[in-house]
């Protein structure tokens, strides 16, 4: 399955590709250079003759006056050759030096041709053209012959490209350029082109833009417009009457805005496109059939394909040639033995399967030859986990549901188009509906990625080893209690009030835990726990094929030593980046629980550190800014909001600061700790109390809902303001004892 959608921003098409080609073939395409130039410049739309920009954009860095993108795919009859042509033309008015610097140099690939078989070639011809239009109307075409040749020579391949300087660019000029590729290659029965995510907004405003797609002979198009973008309309192209052509026009697009906590997938008008070819209109079952129905252009997907696809993936991962077969076999052996000796429920067996697979993967590093062929190449990710778990559950005859989740963060469920937009998970059906989705050394079997929360998913029920037809479901919303940070800090000044000694205890769960996992977790944890646990013993006794060499053991010991050293640095960096605590002298730390198991899923640790007090001394007292002790910090936010708000996750953060050894009678300013804010989505509350010789400050921050509408922005501002006030509380402390 493809894991990512290529968000291909077509404005940057001159970026070099790293594909390896050779045999430059520039001489044979000379006549075509002029043809393409004619086509791109002489036959261009009348919008490419315009020079003015709307008054409202006069203070922008640059304005795109016109942009035209054309793409076509066609198959030659009775041949395996596929032709993919791409033509891009853009006209930009440059309004400041920043824009001039951006357009003052271009790099572009040279034509290339390579042999891919005995009589087969792959060929890419490329054409570029640049011209500058001055405010007085003078037009200066840039001589491509001035481009300098650049090469990267490898042992077998040479990568060649050209670099050209655009002369005499000045503020007020218009640069008009095109870049075209004509790509020919051979294909089999089915070929899918990379998914394209064409956005209608970018860093500069766009006055007019047009997109055209043409398909011929066995080629098909999937397209879906999102966030209010215009749709492609069918038309007959007089220059290409055989093709089925689609186009859209769009005007007056402001530049996109970069705002904190925004999700551009949800905001920017865009069109999703994917072209594909299939021989004689046949799509085989499983993955390919996801592309059904076979209309020339459709915005539908065929979720029926998921049932067969799931079956195929399980079959593949357990097959004789699968690198993961040993992992699968070991898990089955372990679970069969387990189920014999214990009366496990299906949920408990599934849990055991999860932890066994996790431990099996992460103990590989302790062997001279890993038992998994793809160990050094692959990651233990949710895809691998999902299909291995599915295979194990199937073998153990445990009913489950294979889920294909459409994360809300990336697309609305109704806008699903690409296969790569689906993310896998497993749901147990017979008992507690646990969803298994998260893979990782510190993950638990019930952990679920944040972006799955409230997401729509396709469900493929697997009952009695039968793969049934899909249905749809909505995954549960997270509770803020699932993502909790609790920090208790004991604080004391040194005698001269220059520094503060802090002893903090952190307890973290859910997403709040993830940020610290990568700091606190070291491979020694697996090693120590592996030795002590039943999984490790089984793997050692029953599965090990080669033991580690003494020299490797030594290397690993040194590696662990380095990891331990690095951990200190990471703790300091984390305190600085997430809590704004700097100049830390870390005296000691102690991890109480790594939160890797279901009986103690929280990460719990203690830090003992010293920081400068940075207090202002005034005769017999100091003014101390308590902000250096709090984990709550405000952001500098604009009053205006353009887009909806997506805070990282629902969460609850509790903090207690215990000032020790202060005479509370003489301290001024403590009442400033009493703050409260509550809205429908956000809340903050803090207060103080005096207990013996201690002053205790408690603060709680709650994010009840992390997806907010832009109309809720004032809530965020008010919430931010109260945190700002809290994090700047200053207290006056007498330094001369009464």
């Amino acid at each position, binding site marked *: 399955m493809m894991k990512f959608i290529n968000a291909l921003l077509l404005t940057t098409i001159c970026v070099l590709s790293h594909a390896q080609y050779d045999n430059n073939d520039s001489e044979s395409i000379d006549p075509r250079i002029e043809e393409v130039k004619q086509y791109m410049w002489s036959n261009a739309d009348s919008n490419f003759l315009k020079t003015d920009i709307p008054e409202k954009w006069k*203070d922008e860095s640059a304005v795109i006056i016109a942009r035209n993108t054309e793409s076509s795919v066609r198959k030659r009859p009775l041949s395996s050759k596929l032709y993919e042509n791409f033509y891009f033309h853009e006209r930009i008015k440059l309004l400041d030096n920043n824009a001039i*610097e951006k357009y003052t*140099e271009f790099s572009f690939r040279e034509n290339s041709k390579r042999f891919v078989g005995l009589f087969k070639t792959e060929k890419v011809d490329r054409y570029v053209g640049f011209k500058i239009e001055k405010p007085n109307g003078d037009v200066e075409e840039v001589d491509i012959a001035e481009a300098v040749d650049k090469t990267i*020579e490898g042992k077998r391949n040479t990568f060649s490209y050209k670099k050209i300087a655009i002369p005499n660019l000045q503020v007020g000029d218009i640069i008009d350029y095109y870049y075209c590729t004509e790509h020919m290659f051979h294909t089999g029965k089915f070929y899918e082109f990379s998914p394209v995510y064409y956005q209608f907004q970018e860093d500069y405003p766009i006055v007019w833009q047009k997109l055209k797609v043409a398909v011929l002979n066995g080629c098909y198009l999937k397209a879906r417009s999102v966030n209010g973008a215009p749709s492609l309309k069918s038309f007959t192209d007089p220059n290409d009457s055989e093709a089925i052509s689609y186009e859209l026009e769009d005007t007056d697009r402001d530049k996109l805005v970069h705002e904190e906590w925004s999700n551009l997938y949800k905001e920017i008008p865009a069109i999703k496109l994917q072209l594909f070819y299939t021989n004689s209109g046949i799509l085989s079952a499983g993955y390919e059939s996801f592309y059904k129905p076979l209309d020339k252009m459709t915005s539908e997907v065929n979720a029926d394909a998921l049932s067969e696809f799931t079956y195929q993936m399980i079959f593949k991962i357990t097959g004789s040639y699968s690198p993961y077969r040993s992992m699968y076999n070991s898990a089955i052996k372990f679970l069969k033995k387990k189920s014999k000796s214990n009366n496990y429920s299906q949920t408990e067996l599934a849990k055991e399967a999860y932890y066994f697979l996790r431990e099996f993967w992460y103990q590989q590093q302790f062997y001279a030859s890993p038992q998994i062929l793809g160990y050094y190449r692959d990651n233990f990710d949710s895809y691998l986990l999902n299909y291995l778990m599915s295979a194990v559950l199937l073998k153990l005859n445990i009913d489950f549901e294979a889920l294909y989740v459409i994360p809300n963060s990336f697309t609305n469920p109704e806008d699903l188009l690409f296969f790569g937009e689906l993310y896998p998970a497993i749901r147990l059906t017979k008992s507690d509906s646990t969803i298994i989705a998260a893979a990782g050394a510190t993950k638990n079997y019930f952990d679920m990625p944040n972006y799955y929360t409230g997401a729509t998913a396709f469900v493929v029920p697997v009952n009695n080893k039968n793969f049934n037809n899909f249905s749809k479901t909505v995954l549960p919303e997270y509770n803020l209690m699932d993502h909790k940070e609790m920090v208790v800090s004991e604080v004391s000044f040194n005698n001269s009030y220059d520094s503060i000694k802090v002893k903090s205890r952190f307890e973290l769960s859910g997403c709040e835990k993830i940020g610290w996992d990568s700091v606190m977790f070291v491979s020694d944890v697996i090693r120590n726990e592996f030795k002590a646990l039943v999984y490790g013993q089984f793997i050692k006794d029953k599965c090990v094929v080669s033991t580690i060499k003494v020299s490797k053991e030594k290397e690993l010991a*040194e590696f662990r030593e*380095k990891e331990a050293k690095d951990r200190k640095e990471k703790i300091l960096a984390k305190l600085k980046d997430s809590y704004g605590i700097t100049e830390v002298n870390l005296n000691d730390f102690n991890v109480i629980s790594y939160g890797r198991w279901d009986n103690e899923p929280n990460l719990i640790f203690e830090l003992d550190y010293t920081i400068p007090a940075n207090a*202002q001394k005034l005769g017999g007292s100091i003014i101390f800014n308590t902000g250096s002790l709090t984990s709550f910090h405000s952001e500098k936010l604009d009053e205006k909001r353009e887009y909806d708000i997506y805070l990282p996750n629902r969460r609850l953060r509790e903090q207690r600061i215990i000032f020790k050894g202060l005479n509370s009678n003489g301290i001024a300013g403590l009442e400033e700790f009493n703050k409260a804010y509550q809205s429908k989505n956000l809340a903050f509350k803090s207060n103080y109390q005096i207990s013996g010789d201690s002053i205790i400050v408690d603060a709680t921050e709650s994010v009840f809902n992390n997806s907010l509408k832009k109309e809720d922005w004032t809530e965020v501002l008010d919430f931010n303001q109260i945190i700002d006030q809290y994090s700047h509380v200053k207290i006056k402390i007498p330094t001369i004892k009464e």
Partner: protein
Amino acid sequence: MNSRFVLLAWLLLSCLCLSAAQYSRKELKEKWPEANTIIRSYKTLISFTRNPETKLIEVYQQDSIEMIPVNDGYIERVYFFDVNASVGECKLRLNGRNKRSMMKTIANYDGESVFHSDNKICLFKAVSLADDNYYLFTGEKSIQDIKFLTDVFFNDQLYPIVERTYTIQIPEWLELDIKEYNFDFFNVEKSDKNWEGGKQVIFKFADLDQLNTDKKGFLSLHHSYPHILFLPKSYNTVNGNRESIINDTRDLFDWYKKLLGDLTYNKEILGPVVKEITKDQTTDVDKIKAIYYWVQEHRRYVAFEEGLAGFRPEKAEGVYHKKYGDCKGMSNLLYAMLNIAGYHAKIAWLGAFNLRYNHATPSLAVDNHVICYLNFNHDDYFLDATIKLNPLNNNPISIQGKEIMINYDSTFVLKKIPEKDISENLKIRKSFYNISGTSLVGETSIEYNGDSKNHLMYSFRSIKRSDRNEFLEKVIIGDENTICDSIQTSEIDQRDSIFKIDFNEEVKNAVVSFGNETYVNLNSFNSFTMNDVDTTNCYHIFLNQKINSQSEITIPIPEDLEVLELPENTSYSVGAFSLVISYQQIGNQLICKHTVKINKAIIYKEDFSDFVDFNNHFKKIFTATIALKNKG
């Protein structure tokens, strides 16, 4: 002597010296925890031969490098070369015995802000495993003409080195001087010994970190790391005749002249252009200025380093037609246009601020820039056409204090470009605030002169117009508690007057009250951004300019308050650093003034203790607090 035999003997010697490595693998990891590979021994042999066909002295470099992989990964080696050099056979052997294959890649290498150069990089890469003992890399590079053997650095680009040995075999027939730079802070031994064909000069370094250019305030390798310049003076031909190479500054000039080529220009093309540019100018200086500014504005600087050794400029009319050029080409166009206008401008070579040399050292390494020089009415004009919007007589920091070699056709003149006096870089900030709750709210005006103006305007011009306010807040104010609005600036494209910024400002959390006492803290005006620079493993700090900053903050005392206590007036001065701060009550106003001066643009390691002391005082002074109390 047969060069292969020399190499064999030398490799043998290298093997015998293996025991010199002093550290265990564990100690190496502790010493350089970030390194994936550590070089335990890096030996280079430089030898010379006379090529009877080319009549040039060729240089052979033979490297033998023992690398210890600390982690699984790759071992890499690089050679840089150009049209005057080539990379020979390179091999990699595990534990010095078993040959290992390497992936070889050759690519154009355009340095930072260079559009195109003829420099190339030859990269060798091989997989390495942490439990391998060591890898022996042997490689060769040759340079076809000794003149192009210029500067050599001893630190490695990629890995730390335990022991570095650099041996130069100077034959009797060659007169070669070697000049050392930045040796003071490194563990180095130099020895000379006789060798059968002449003498050997050997440099031995211990514990060299890899080259690191990422540090804040870093200017250049030449200001930091130990290196030598090769100064080949003369040699005896095989026939016994003495031939000069670059014996002195005159020879260097002659070589430059040869490379400079024909400076003639096409008056028919450029004449009308010059006439048009100067048609409205009445005085000579205005005409010079008009031509200088026209080239700056109408021809774009694009760095090409492809001419013969990077010194041959493009023809003036070529730059005129192409509308861009490198420093040589743009200076050549300016030279031609000024001469057409009747001003006897000259071409001049210099080493820019990233180099540390002058022309008393006759080497091609001392110069890397070309400008146009004009003496008119006994005034010197140093015209760098590559700097956009640079005013006449306002020499950029990149060439201040540098010696130029001026081409007077048959001879040359050396002249030093004056350094700007610190008074020319004055930055004045004036703020008027009212106390408003926990904030200070008011107006601020900042004026920039000299280099302080040049730097700000360069940055200001290069960012998007729509990002300028944000830039001001983040870079100029640099304090998260400060909010600016209504930002007004003087004309950004003007050259000849001060640059001024006015804005409204709210400094949050600057005021706190406890009962009848109110405290005002001016810590947020600590705007000297280099005070957090890390001076460890650092050999210089580049400040961009000599700093001369004055601030005056006026705060009316609210009617219901009076002064309880003002911080003490303080001054501090050490070496090139000084700081004066004063607090006064005049009438019902509090006035805080401070002046910060650093009379050096580059602070070298020997001044670091002064710099650290200065920073400590700076931080301490700026935490002072003004105490007010309720009246009555």
